[in-house]
């Protein structure tokens, strides 16, 4: 009954404050990005002058694109991301299947060792992995950027969780029908794990599209450098490149993920939720 005791005006004020807070935070949050977009789509003269009718231009993008081999960097990044995701899905499905459906000695120890990677990632073990790549003769190759990430502890963990929810009756039925183990994995488990794979795929793509330190160390030529490394070199050359061009280049490198995110916002958010929580 005490609801009646709270005057309606106080509730309204409460709600209004809540909304003002939300919008204020959102605008502050968008400010750096909005500022970058402003700079990129206007001539250099308007870099810091905010006139609502300043002339728009795409010239900064054109000049940025021509100032560095961004096309090549794009190809490298796309190759890299595709290669990593493909390898991860194949290798980790196989391993996760074994962990979910087989009994063997040392299973728990092995699984614990897989989980170790969630804490001690290859991102930290730079010095030794560089030496390993050296002895494999892989330095400055796209394969070397991706190789340490192929066996993802995170993917094995996620897929194992999903595979465990598949009813045992299903695979017993399939086995009785004469389906082989790999056939069972491919025909029964993989189709049922598609949502998990999609979720992991988005996380993996955005992570490796954005990854920086390891690619920076292991690559040294235009033919192998991904976008992030290319952008960092472009932006730090200090050769008097105008800010409007650097911001344009920055937006170019982020554009595919940004556009992908804006188009598939719901899937993105749900995928990240699923990957983080399951």
């Amino acid at each position: 009954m005490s609801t009646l005791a709270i005057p309606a005006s106080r509730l309204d004020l409460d709600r209004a404050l809540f909304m003002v807070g939300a919008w204020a935070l959102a605008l502050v949050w968008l400010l750096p990005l909005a500022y970058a977009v402003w700079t990129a789509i206007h001539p250099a003269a308007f870099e810091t002058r905010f006139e609502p009718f300043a002339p728009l231009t795409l010239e900064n993008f054109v000049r940025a694109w021509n100032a560095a081999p961004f096309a090549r960097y794009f190809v490298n990044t796309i190759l890299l991301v595709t290669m990593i995701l493909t390898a991860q899905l194949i290798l980790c499905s196989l391993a996760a299947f074994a962990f979910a459906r087989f009994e063997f000695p040392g299973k728990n120890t092995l699984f614990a060792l897989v989980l170790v990677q969630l804490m001690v990632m290859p991102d930290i073990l730079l010095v030794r992995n560089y030496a390993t790549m050296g002895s494999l003769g892989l330095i400055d190759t796209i394969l070397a950027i991706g190789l340490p990430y192929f066996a993802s502890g995170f993917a094995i963990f996620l897929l194992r969780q999903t595979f465990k929810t598949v009813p045992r009756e299903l695979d017993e039925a399939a086995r009785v029908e004469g389906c082989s183990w790999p056939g069972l994995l491919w025909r029964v488990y993989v189709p049922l794990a598609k949502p998990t794979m999609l979720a992991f795929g988005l996380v993996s793509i955005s992570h490796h599209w954005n990854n920086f330190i390891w690619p920076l160390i292991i690559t040294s030529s235009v033919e192998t450098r991904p976008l992030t490394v290319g952008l960092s070199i472009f932006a730090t050359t200090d050769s008097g490149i105008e800010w409007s061009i650097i911001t344009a280049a920055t937006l170019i490198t982020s554009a595919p993920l940004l556009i992908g995110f804006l188009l598939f916002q719901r899937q993105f958010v749900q995928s990240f939720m699923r990957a983080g929580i399951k």
Partner: protein
Amino acid sequence: MVRKDWLIALAFLAPALILLFTFTHYPAVQTVIDSFWSTARGRRPSVFVGWDNYARMLQDDIFRRAMINNAIYAAITIPASVALALAMALFVQGRILGRGFLRMAFFTPTVLPLIAVANIWLFFYLPGFGLFEQVRGLAGLSPRNWIGDPDTALYAVTAVTVWAQAGFFMIFYLAALQTIPPSLREAAEIEGCSRWTFFRRVTWPLIMPTTLFISVNATINAFRTVDHIFVMTQGGPNNASMLLLYYIYEQGFRFWDTAYASALTVVMVIILAIVGIGQFFFLDRKVHYR
């Protein structure tokens, strides 16, 4: 039959495990071994030096600086990211004007490469030029070089990290808030319970596991997220924004002192292991990993 299964399981596991051991376990162990040897230079081969690399670390002012900086960096980014993520999630969970837009505004920084984020913020901070400065200029304050000043450089890069990750953590809070039964809120409303009391007594305890989960991730990020340092400050000025992982990079790949870099990496692995063990004991894993 059991034995045959065993072999099949091994065949499924082998490719992933071989790669995992080659690029995670073997380098982790080998790094520990390397840290007790000297760096081979020219014709001088690597020799066993015992604890020398660690003794050097204790004398190393830059290392001490990096550890202190990293502690400050963690002490700010963890609570700030958690608090902002929670505020964002509370803002967009219910019915609110422009919910889709708000959600997008909060989450967008998360999909940008940190290198790109660093460029955007570099421009934002530029002395006498960036937006901060414009506002200061309007207020009649003198221009300030945020990332070139040892007093502010660390905080400038810290703000960037919070900006880049808070929206990501918001997602987990959103998921957690969805699991709170609406009947609880209805009951609270009938009882005339204020929004704040409801949050403190019901919401906050219920989402505690998520808060711990996010805190662990924020802690790992506090040691792993240094990409923007490369573009913004390179650890400077005068090591004011030096962080542990950046220092490892500098020792290992700028000065090519791989032995010392290995010893530094061991420190890093120990820190992450402590976080991992802490997570294992503190988190009720059943809550997260159903």
